[in-house]
């Protein structure tokens, strides 16, 4: 399951519909194989506005699923490390929980709509997927939020950031190589091929489930 969303300075979605060729290769690589039980693998991509907190939570809670996220990580002002990832309608902090935005239309045409922010922070979310790989800046910081699964995150090097364009190619390469160490090697090769100066030093690292 691939979930990707990010916007540019004008609020336009920048990942949805991009790198089609690379993601088609990744999809074929997955669907051409069978899992350990002999079942054919499936490949799903959710992107842009559909990449919601609810979709992400459903993905990471599902056993026998490999989840890949591409997009923005979150670092609070004043902090030295990332604390979560940004979905199209809220944020996720892995097993620590999440919140989203829910708008309810007014009960009559004249009454205004209302908004609420359903949150599981404090209660936590279930992480039962076989693996979770987060392709955002410094997402390796989030490893403690995913201790129950095989986790892969990005270290963003000296500049502390990695371009979304590069992160997307890293993710597609990782999936095409089947994840694990081959996936990490393929991701790091994608960084080596990046034309962007700020990507220098970015690389992926993995931690096994504890």
């Amino acid at each position, binding site marked *: 399951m691939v979930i990707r969303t990010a916007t540019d300075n004008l*609020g336009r979605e*920048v990942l949805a519909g991009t790198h089609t060729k690379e993601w088609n290769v990744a999809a074929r690589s997955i669907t051409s194989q069978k899992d350990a039980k002999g079942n054919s693998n499936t490949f799903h991509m959710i992107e842009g506005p559909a990449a919601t907190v609810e979709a992400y939570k459903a993905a990471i809670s599902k056993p026998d699923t490999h989840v890949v996220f591409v997009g923005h*990580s979150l670092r609070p*002002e004043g902090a030295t*490390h990332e604390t*979560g990832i940004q979905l199209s309608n809220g944020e996720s902090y892995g097993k620590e929980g999440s919140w989203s935005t829910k708008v309810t239309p007014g009960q009559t045409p004249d009454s205004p709509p209302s908004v609420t922010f359903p949150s599981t922070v404090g209660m936590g979310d279930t992480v039962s997927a076989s693996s979770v790989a987060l392709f955002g800046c410094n997402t390796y910081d989030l490893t403690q939020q995913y201790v129950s699964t095989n986790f892969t995150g990005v270290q963003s090097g000296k500049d502390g950031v990695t371009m979304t364009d590069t992160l997307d190619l890293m993710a597609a390469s990782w999936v095409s190589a089947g994840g694990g160490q081959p996936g990490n090697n393929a991701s790091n090769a994608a960084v080596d091929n990046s034309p962007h100066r700020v990507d220098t030093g970015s690389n992926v690292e993995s931690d096994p489930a504890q």
Partner: protein
Amino acid sequence: MRRIILTMAAMIVFLGGSYSQQSREKGSPTPCSYSELYRKDGWMVPGLKGAKIKVKRMAVEDSPGMSMMVLEPTEPEPTITVFRCSRDHVGRMEIDEIPIGIITLWAFDFGGRTFAYRLSYGIDTIENGQRMPTGSAANVMFYDLDGSGRFVLRKSAGGPSDSVAPAPIPEWVTKE
């Protein structure tokens, strides 16, 4: 100019105080950590100037009397001054004016009296004169604490311990 210098000095003293306190508490090398920035003259809220209404006022369900509006910035090249704790040097703060992409800008009010803005922004870089998004984002809340129209308090809003809606609500907003 003198006023700006004084404001900056006040802010640095404020941050310095925060470090000293943490250092005493932990007895370890002085860390770099803060959760609020106060600027007497008020912070400029990126994307606010010329912003249009994207989603009209909605009642915030869990906060009686509070409403929220989604704004659509029109500024093509917004920036923000960031105060970052260095990942490589303990205790070092890095101050920088950076290009950003505005993900969301929300305005919160009580009876039409706007008292807080919540800004979610992605960090951009500029290469060969072109803005490009990175995979890093942050959230920040700006508060008008006294109804003066100056949004003097800037507070982090991007972690599991931070609330989504403004908290606490300044007293002036709920009076009348």
